[in-house]
Protein backbone atom coordinates (compact mmCIF):
# COMPACT_ATOMS: atom_id res chain seq x y z
CA UNK A 1 0.00 0.00 0.00
CA UNK A 2 1.43 3.34 -1.01
CA UNK A 3 1.53 6.19 1.40
CA UNK A 4 -1.00 8.16 -0.64
CA UNK A 5 -3.54 5.30 -0.54
CA UNK A 6 -3.05 4.91 3.18
CA UNK A 7 -3.60 8.61 3.55
CA UNK A 8 -6.82 8.44 1.49
CA UNK A 9 -8.16 5.49 3.49
CA UNK A 10 -7.29 7.33 6.66
CA UNK A 11 -9.50 10.20 5.51
CA UNK A 12 -12.36 8.31 3.90
CA UNK A 13 -12.49 4.98 5.75
CA UNK A 14 -14.78 6.19 8.47
CA UNK A 15 -13.05 9.55 8.58
CA UNK A 16 -14.95 12.19 10.48
CA UNK A 17 -13.96 15.23 8.46
CA UNK A 18 -13.68 14.35 4.76
CA UNK A 19 -14.04 17.97 3.58
CA UNK A 20 -11.66 19.42 6.18
CA UNK A 21 -14.19 22.18 6.69
CA UNK A 22 -16.50 23.02 9.58
CA UNK A 23 -20.18 22.10 9.45
CA UNK A 24 -21.10 25.75 8.88
CA UNK A 25 -19.06 25.90 5.70
CA UNK A 26 -20.36 22.57 4.37
CA UNK A 27 -23.96 23.61 5.09
CA UNK A 28 -23.47 27.06 3.54
CA UNK A 29 -22.03 25.51 0.39
CA UNK A 30 -24.89 23.00 0.21
CA UNK A 31 -27.28 25.94 0.43
CA UNK A 32 -25.37 27.81 -2.28
CA UNK A 33 -25.54 24.77 -4.61
CA UNK A 34 -29.32 24.45 -4.22
CA UNK A 35 -29.89 28.21 -4.44
CA UNK A 36 -27.65 28.33 -7.49
CA UNK A 37 -29.84 25.66 -9.10
CA UNK A 38 -32.87 27.90 -8.55
CA UNK A 39 -31.23 30.58 -10.70
CA UNK A 40 -29.95 27.97 -13.17
CA UNK A 41 -33.57 26.88 -13.62
CA UNK A 42 -34.75 30.47 -14.13
CA UNK A 43 -32.03 31.19 -16.67
CA UNK A 44 -32.60 27.88 -18.52
CA UNK A 45 -36.31 28.62 -18.74
CA UNK A 46 -35.55 32.17 -19.91
CA UNK A 47 -33.18 30.82 -22.57
CA UNK A 48 -35.81 28.58 -24.08
CA UNK A 49 -38.56 31.18 -23.86
CA UNK A 50 -36.29 33.51 -25.77
CA UNK A 51 -35.23 30.92 -28.38
CA UNK A 52 -38.74 29.65 -29.06
CA UNK A 53 -40.66 32.90 -28.71
CA UNK A 54 -40.85 35.51 -31.41
CA UNK A 55 -39.31 38.96 -31.34
CA UNK A 56 -37.27 39.18 -28.15
CA UNK A 57 -36.61 42.90 -27.57
CA UNK A 58 -33.16 44.41 -28.09
CA UNK A 59 -32.12 44.92 -24.45
CA UNK A 60 -29.92 47.91 -25.22
CA UNK A 61 -33.05 49.78 -26.33
CA UNK A 62 -34.90 48.96 -23.11
CA UNK A 63 -32.10 49.33 -20.56
CA UNK A 64 -29.21 51.76 -20.36
CA UNK A 65 -26.08 49.60 -20.60
CA UNK A 66 -23.84 52.14 -18.75
CA UNK A 67 -26.39 52.16 -15.89
CA UNK A 68 -26.36 48.35 -15.63
CA UNK A 69 -22.55 48.47 -15.83
CA UNK A 70 -22.52 50.90 -12.89
CA UNK A 71 -24.72 48.48 -10.89
CA UNK A 72 -22.26 45.69 -11.72
CA UNK A 73 -19.33 47.86 -10.61
CA UNK A 74 -21.02 48.57 -7.27
CA UNK A 75 -21.75 44.89 -6.62
CA UNK A 76 -18.26 43.65 -7.59
CA UNK A 77 -16.68 46.33 -5.39
CA UNK A 78 -18.91 45.37 -2.45
CA UNK A 79 -17.73 41.79 -2.93
CA UNK A 80 -14.12 42.99 -2.68
CA UNK A 81 -14.79 44.90 0.56
CA UNK A 82 -16.53 41.80 1.95
CA UNK A 83 -13.43 39.73 1.22
CA UNK A 84 -11.42 42.36 3.14
CA UNK A 85 -13.93 42.10 6.03
CA UNK A 86 -13.44 38.31 6.22
CA UNK A 87 -9.68 38.79 6.30
CA UNK A 88 -9.95 41.45 9.04
CA UNK A 89 -12.13 39.09 11.09
CA UNK A 90 -9.52 36.33 10.72
CA UNK A 91 -6.86 38.75 11.93
CA UNK A 92 -9.15 39.63 14.88
CA UNK A 93 -9.25 43.31 13.93
CA UNK A 94 -12.73 44.15 15.13
CA UNK A 95 -13.01 47.84 14.07
CA UNK A 96 -11.70 47.04 10.58
CA UNK A 97 -14.12 44.10 10.29
CA UNK A 98 -17.12 46.27 11.17
CA UNK A 99 -15.95 49.07 8.87
CA UNK A 100 -15.57 46.74 5.88
CA UNK A 101 -18.91 45.00 6.55
CA UNK A 102 -20.70 48.36 6.71
CA UNK A 103 -18.96 49.44 3.50
CA UNK A 104 -20.22 46.23 1.87
CA UNK A 105 -23.74 46.85 3.16
CA UNK A 106 -23.59 50.39 1.73
CA UNK A 107 -22.69 48.92 -1.66
CA UNK A 108 -25.60 46.50 -1.42
CA UNK A 109 -27.97 49.33 -0.48
CA UNK A 110 -26.80 51.43 -3.45
CA UNK A 111 -27.31 48.43 -5.75
CA UNK A 112 -30.85 47.87 -4.44
CA UNK A 113 -31.66 51.57 -4.81
CA UNK A 114 -30.43 51.55 -8.39
CA UNK A 115 -32.51 48.45 -9.10
CA UNK A 116 -35.63 50.05 -7.61
CA UNK A 117 -35.03 53.08 -9.84
CA UNK A 118 -34.65 50.80 -12.88
CA UNK A 119 -37.89 48.97 -12.07
CA UNK A 120 -39.69 52.28 -11.71
CA UNK A 121 -38.32 53.37 -15.09
CA UNK A 122 -39.46 50.24 -16.99
CA UNK A 123 -42.83 50.12 -15.22
CA UNK A 124 -43.46 53.73 -16.22
CA UNK A 125 -42.51 52.79 -19.79
CA UNK A 126 -45.29 50.19 -19.72
CA UNK A 127 -43.56 46.93 -18.81
CA UNK A 128 -45.86 44.48 -17.01
CA UNK A 129 -45.70 40.77 -16.18
CA UNK A 130 -47.79 39.85 -19.20
CA UNK A 131 -47.00 42.61 -21.68
CA UNK A 132 -44.47 45.23 -22.69
CA UNK A 133 -44.13 47.79 -25.49
CA UNK A 134 -40.96 46.28 -27.01
CA UNK A 135 -41.67 42.71 -28.08
CA UNK A 136 -42.25 39.18 -26.75
CA UNK A 137 -44.80 39.22 -23.92
CA UNK A 138 -42.64 36.91 -21.77
CA UNK A 139 -39.85 39.53 -21.62
CA UNK A 140 -41.50 41.44 -18.76
CA UNK A 141 -42.25 38.27 -16.80
CA UNK A 142 -38.64 37.06 -17.01
CA UNK A 143 -37.25 40.50 -16.19
CA UNK A 144 -39.32 40.86 -13.03
CA UNK A 145 -38.85 37.22 -12.00
CA UNK A 146 -35.07 37.05 -12.41
CA UNK A 147 -34.06 40.52 -11.22
CA UNK A 148 -36.74 40.35 -8.50
CA UNK A 149 -35.39 37.11 -7.07
CA UNK A 150 -31.84 38.44 -7.26
CA UNK A 151 -32.86 41.71 -5.59
CA UNK A 152 -34.55 39.73 -2.80
CA UNK A 153 -31.26 37.90 -2.28
CA UNK A 154 -29.44 41.24 -2.04
CA UNK A 155 -32.00 42.49 0.49
CA UNK A 156 -31.59 39.29 2.54
CA UNK A 157 -27.83 39.75 2.31
CA UNK A 158 -28.19 43.28 3.71
CA UNK A 159 -30.00 41.89 6.77
CA UNK A 160 -27.29 39.24 7.21
CA UNK A 161 -24.54 41.88 6.87
CA UNK A 162 -26.12 44.30 9.31
CA UNK A 163 -26.73 41.60 11.91
CA UNK A 164 -23.15 40.35 11.45
CA UNK A 165 -21.85 43.91 11.94
CA UNK A 166 -23.98 44.27 15.05
CA UNK A 167 -22.81 40.92 16.43
CA UNK A 168 -19.19 41.84 15.68
CA UNK A 169 -19.63 45.14 17.51
CA UNK A 170 -20.89 43.22 20.56
CA UNK A 171 -18.03 40.75 20.20
CA UNK A 172 -20.49 37.90 19.62
CA UNK A 173 -19.44 37.04 16.08
CA UNK A 174 -16.74 34.50 15.27
CA UNK A 175 -14.39 34.87 12.28
CA UNK A 176 -16.21 31.87 10.79
CA UNK A 177 -19.54 33.70 11.13
CA UNK A 178 -18.19 36.64 9.13
CA UNK A 179 -16.80 34.18 6.57
CA UNK A 180 -20.26 32.59 6.10
CA UNK A 181 -21.87 36.02 5.60
CA UNK A 182 -19.09 36.64 3.07
CA UNK A 183 -19.75 33.37 1.20
CA UNK A 184 -23.42 34.31 0.84
CA UNK A 185 -22.58 37.82 -0.34
CA UNK A 186 -20.09 36.56 -2.96
CA UNK A 187 -22.75 34.13 -4.15
CA UNK A 188 -25.14 37.04 -4.75
CA UNK A 189 -22.38 38.71 -6.77
CA UNK A 190 -21.77 35.44 -8.66
CA UNK A 191 -25.43 35.16 -9.66
CA UNK A 192 -25.38 38.75 -10.90
CA UNK A 193 -22.46 37.88 -13.22
CA UNK A 194 -24.75 35.37 -14.97
CA UNK A 195 -27.79 37.66 -15.04
CA UNK A 196 -25.72 40.62 -16.28
CA UNK A 197 -24.31 38.55 -19.16
CA UNK A 198 -27.26 36.40 -20.15
CA UNK A 199 -30.14 38.81 -19.58
CA UNK A 200 -28.68 42.27 -20.23
CA UNK A 201 -25.75 41.84 -22.63
CA UNK A 202 -26.21 38.75 -24.83
Amino acid at each position, binding site marked *: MTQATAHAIDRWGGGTCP*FEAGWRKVMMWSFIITDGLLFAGFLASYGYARLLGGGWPDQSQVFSVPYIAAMTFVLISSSATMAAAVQAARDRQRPATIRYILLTAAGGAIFLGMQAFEWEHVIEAGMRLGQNPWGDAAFGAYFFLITGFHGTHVATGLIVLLSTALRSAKGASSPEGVEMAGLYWHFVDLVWVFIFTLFYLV
Partner: protein
Amino acid sequence: MAEAHPLRTYATTWVALLALTIVMLSLESAALPRGLFVSLMVAAMLAKASIISAYFMHLRFERVSLVAMIVIGLLVTATVLYVLIVPDARRIHDMAVGQTMGARP
Protein backbone atom coordinates in the same frame (compact mmCIF):
# COMPACT_ATOMS: atom_id res chain seq x y z
CA MET B 1 1.54 31.34 -1.68
CA ALA B 2 -1.26 33.76 -2.36
CA GLU B 3 -2.52 33.56 1.24
CA ALA B 4 0.59 35.38 2.41
CA HIS B 5 -0.86 38.70 1.19
CA PRO B 6 -4.65 38.16 1.15
CA LEU B 7 -5.59 41.82 0.74
CA ARG B 8 -3.33 42.12 -2.27
CA THR B 9 -4.89 38.98 -3.77
CA TYR B 10 -8.37 40.48 -3.24
CA ALA B 11 -7.30 43.76 -4.86
CA THR B 12 -5.93 41.86 -7.87
CA THR B 13 -9.14 39.81 -8.05
CA TRP B 14 -11.22 43.00 -7.98
CA VAL B 15 -9.15 44.58 -10.79
CA ALA B 16 -9.36 41.37 -12.88
CA LEU B 17 -13.17 41.28 -12.50
CA LEU B 18 -13.49 44.94 -13.49
CA ALA B 19 -11.16 44.42 -16.47
CA LEU B 20 -13.27 41.48 -17.69
CA THR B 21 -16.43 43.56 -17.28
CA ILE B 22 -14.91 46.35 -19.37
CA VAL B 23 -13.90 43.81 -22.05
CA MET B 24 -17.49 42.51 -22.12
CA LEU B 25 -18.90 46.03 -22.44
CA SER B 26 -16.55 46.89 -25.30
CA LEU B 27 -17.53 43.65 -27.08
CA GLU B 28 -21.13 44.80 -26.72
CA SER B 29 -20.43 47.92 -28.80
CA ALA B 30 -18.22 46.11 -31.35
CA ALA B 31 -20.19 44.72 -34.29
CA LEU B 32 -19.27 41.02 -34.09
CA PRO B 33 -21.05 38.06 -35.70
CA ARG B 34 -23.76 36.80 -33.33
CA GLY B 35 -22.23 33.34 -32.71
CA LEU B 36 -18.76 34.71 -31.95
CA PHE B 37 -20.21 37.46 -29.74
CA VAL B 38 -22.24 35.01 -27.62
CA SER B 39 -19.31 32.57 -27.30
CA LEU B 40 -16.94 35.34 -26.15
CA MET B 41 -19.51 36.68 -23.68
CA VAL B 42 -20.17 33.25 -22.18
CA ALA B 43 -16.41 32.60 -21.95
CA ALA B 44 -15.88 35.92 -20.13
CA MET B 45 -18.85 35.18 -17.86
CA LEU B 46 -17.46 31.76 -16.89
CA ALA B 47 -14.01 33.31 -16.32
CA LYS B 48 -15.56 35.88 -13.95
CA ALA B 49 -17.54 33.18 -12.14
CA SER B 50 -14.38 31.07 -11.72
CA ILE B 51 -12.37 34.01 -10.40
CA ILE B 52 -15.07 34.90 -7.84
CA SER B 53 -15.44 31.34 -6.57
CA ALA B 54 -11.70 30.62 -6.55
CA TYR B 55 -10.46 33.76 -4.78
CA PHE B 56 -13.38 35.58 -3.10
CA MET B 57 -15.05 32.33 -2.01
CA HIS B 58 -11.67 30.67 -1.27
CA LEU B 59 -12.41 27.53 -3.30
CA ARG B 60 -8.81 27.55 -4.49
CA PHE B 61 -7.70 26.99 -0.91
CA GLU B 62 -10.26 24.35 0.06
CA ARG B 63 -9.79 20.60 0.06
CA VAL B 64 -10.33 18.92 -3.33
CA SER B 65 -13.25 16.83 -2.01
CA LEU B 66 -15.23 19.97 -1.11
CA VAL B 67 -14.40 21.66 -4.43
CA ALA B 68 -15.42 18.51 -6.35
CA MET B 69 -18.72 18.28 -4.48
CA ILE B 70 -19.55 21.91 -5.28
CA VAL B 71 -18.29 22.26 -8.85
CA ILE B 72 -19.24 18.81 -10.21
CA GLY B 73 -22.52 18.74 -8.28
CA LEU B 74 -23.59 22.16 -9.48
CA LEU B 75 -22.45 21.76 -13.11
CA VAL B 76 -23.93 18.27 -13.61
CA THR B 77 -27.27 19.13 -12.00
CA ALA B 78 -27.52 22.44 -13.86
CA THR B 79 -26.80 20.67 -17.17
CA VAL B 80 -29.41 17.97 -16.50
CA LEU B 81 -31.91 20.65 -15.51
CA TYR B 82 -31.19 22.57 -18.70
CA VAL B 83 -31.46 19.49 -20.93
CA LEU B 84 -34.72 18.40 -19.28
CA ILE B 85 -36.33 21.75 -20.01
CA VAL B 86 -35.81 21.40 -23.80
CA PRO B 87 -38.56 18.86 -24.61
CA ASP B 88 -41.03 20.50 -22.24
CA ALA B 89 -40.37 23.96 -23.65
CA ARG B 90 -40.83 22.63 -27.19
CA ARG B 91 -44.05 20.84 -26.25
CA ILE B 92 -45.60 23.87 -24.58
CA HIS B 93 -44.50 26.07 -27.46
CA ASP B 94 -46.02 23.71 -30.06
CA MET B 95 -49.24 23.57 -28.03
CA ALA B 96 -49.45 27.37 -27.98
CA VAL B 97 -48.76 27.59 -31.71
CA GLY B 98 -51.39 24.89 -32.39
CA GLN B 99 -53.99 26.86 -30.40
CA THR B 100 -53.37 30.06 -32.33
CA MET B 101 -53.70 28.22 -35.61
CA GLY B 102 -56.84 26.39 -34.42
CA ALA B 103 -58.49 29.69 -33.52
CA ARG B 104 -58.36 30.82 -37.13
CA PRO B 105 -61.47 30.04 -39.21
